[in-house]
């Protein structure tokens, strides 16, 4: 793959996530999306960088803040929009919504409404790989809050003793809802928790897609050669509150500004131009293409029917 194609794909995902989330926030405010909705705005580089390093037969495990992971892994935007709009055409017939999108076809084991709940599932994917003896790998996405749940530590240990090909991708966005990581941990450097379990670990700039991509690539090599697991702590910050309805007033202005200045989509855009050889005009056209694609998907989802009660009770529920 040429640099041009590489950066094109990267930027496509970054920008798609950005526009997808913005559209959904609008739909949410219009009352067309209900329930919980946790935007991935500001963290796009992590999902995109990590997934770019994966093979098509690898697995990922996502979170309650999962749209970015799904898109970066090649998820179908129409199915995603239909799902969050509670329509039959959605990934889950509209039965799951934002927090429960899984895409078995792309190896996305799924989002999760239980913080930390997905981590052991990723260990299981690693275990099947190890039993089958293939060279697949797993990336488990989770955030700082989840790292305080016991299953994180247990899972680190299981992955370590079984040498599983698992990357723990810790999206340290410094908050669990409104609780800052400084109040939930004595150290902000969460990767250090891995070392006590004999797991390789490092911290990186989670807003730079190139850094994320390269570190994931490296960690994957360790994993595929049977020396895994690996923990990567990607430092980042949300560009807003915890969910759509949270104004995030507790987030200090300076810190927000700092991370805004390191916006992952803008950074990716620069790479697209400087390393991918795109002209400003080309980028603009590309962006419009993506916007249109999402606009169409939104229309598709809006106009889709809901699952009928009959079908639900007679065919879906066993």
């Amino acid at each position, binding site marked *: 793959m040429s640099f041009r194609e590489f950066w094109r794909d990267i930027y496509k995902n970054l920008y798609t996530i950005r526009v997808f989330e913005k559209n959904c926030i609008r739909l949410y405010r219009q009352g067309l999306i209900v329930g*919980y909705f946790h935007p991935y705005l500001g963290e796009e580089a992590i999902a995109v960088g990590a997934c770019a390093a994966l093979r098509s037969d690898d697995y990922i495990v996502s979170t309650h803040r999962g749209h970015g992971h799904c898109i970066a892994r090649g998820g179908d935007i129409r199915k995603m929009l239909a799902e969050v709009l509670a329509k039959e055409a959605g990934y*889950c017939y509209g039965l799951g919504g934002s927090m429960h999108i899984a895409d078995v076809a792309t190896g996305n084991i799924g989002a999760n409404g239980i913080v930390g709940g997905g981590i052991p599932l990723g260990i299981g994917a690693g275990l099947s790989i190890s039993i089958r003896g293939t060279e697949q790998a797993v990336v488990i996405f989770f955030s700082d809050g989840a790292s305080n749940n016991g299953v994180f530590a247990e899972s680190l240990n299981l992955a370590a003793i079984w040498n599983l090909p698992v990357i723990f991708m810790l999206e340290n966005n410094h908050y669990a809802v409104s609780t800052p990581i400084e109040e939930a941990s004595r150290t902000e450097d969460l990767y250090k928790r891995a070392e006590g379990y004999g797991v390789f670990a490092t911290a990186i700039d989670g807003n730079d897609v190139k850094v994320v991509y390269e570190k994931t690539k490296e960690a994957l090599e360790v994993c595929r050669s049977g020396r895994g697991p690996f923990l990567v702590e990607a430092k980042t910050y949300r560009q807003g509150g915890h969910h759509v309805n949270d104004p995030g007033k507790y987030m200090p202005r300076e810190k927000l500004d700092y991370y805004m200045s390191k916006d992952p989509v803008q950074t990716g855009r620069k790479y697209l131009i400087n390393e991918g050889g795109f002209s400003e005009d080309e980028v603009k056209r590309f962006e419009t293409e993506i916007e249109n694609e999402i606009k169409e998907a939104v229309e598709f989802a809006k106009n889709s029917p809901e699952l009928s009660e009959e079908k639900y009770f007679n065919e879906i529920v066993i």
Partner: protein
Amino acid sequence: MTISEKKENSENRVIMYREALNEAIMEEMKNDDTVFVMGEGVAERGGSYKVTAGLLDEFGKKRVIDTPISEASFTGAGVGAAITGMRPIVEILFIDFTVLIMDQIVNQAAKYKFMTGGKGRVPIVVRTQGGSGNGLAAQHSQSLEAWFYHIPGLKVVMPSTPYDAKGLLKSAIRDDDPVMFIEHKLLYMKKGEVPESEYFIELGRGEIKRKGKDITIISWSNMIPRSLSAAERLAEEGIDVEVIDPRTLVPLDRKLIMDSVKKTRNAVIVQEAVRRGGVASDIASIIQEEAFESLDAPVAIVAGKNTPIPFNLRLEKASIPQEKDIILAVKKTLNFKIG
């Protein structure tokens, strides 16, 4: 300490369920230094449903504690604090997350008194909320009271009104045994009369929410308002329904239930939880055992469908009992003719 129930009819201040809960905690924290509150976002944020709002300002960080996402251990810490002389109120954001604290509640808290020959006590209250509503989907909408109901050593409280919420929470905090206090997400904003003066509701004392003579509905939590409105509709058709709210599932006010059923000779139990293995089944089994001769028809159960709760709002609604389902069950029961 004598806990006595008194309803002051003179005062008719109207406040929300969540405000009533907040008042109960405020009063008990003022009254007793050993009462403290712990959970995710209970301090700075005042709780996801605002039940603990204002507590941090009033009582400070030592007694109003924000926790990391470590449900098993901070609940265990609550149990340990209770054993060592405190009266913790632990908040678990959703009853769906109590799956993470079952060891601490079931193997530790519920059995501690027993395992210390009565010398150790665990005066902890675990506040949580359950039920479906507003598209929160399968992992944030469950009704799991049946699990706690099945465990000897636990008390289970499920208030349906602001008045009950306050009086029961105050009693739960003063109780010397572990209490699972289960709120409902759709009730927090519901309003009701709550006197300003202090009162308690004894755990184990149910209430007749509507007097009637033709049939008894037994129900709790968010199914009470629904049962009451079904009763009003049925009244228009000349069917006089008695609605009973046990308020606490453990201890269960069996006498109130039996007296009513023996009077009306017909019973319908309404629960939001899944039918299979729910508390309704247990109450039905008790009624048919104790009032077999008095029943004109089988005890009917209106309950949640056998499915995780769907995100789609129409299907969510279809998965749990609606007014029409209750009305249907009442009519079917009253029309039952022995073979």
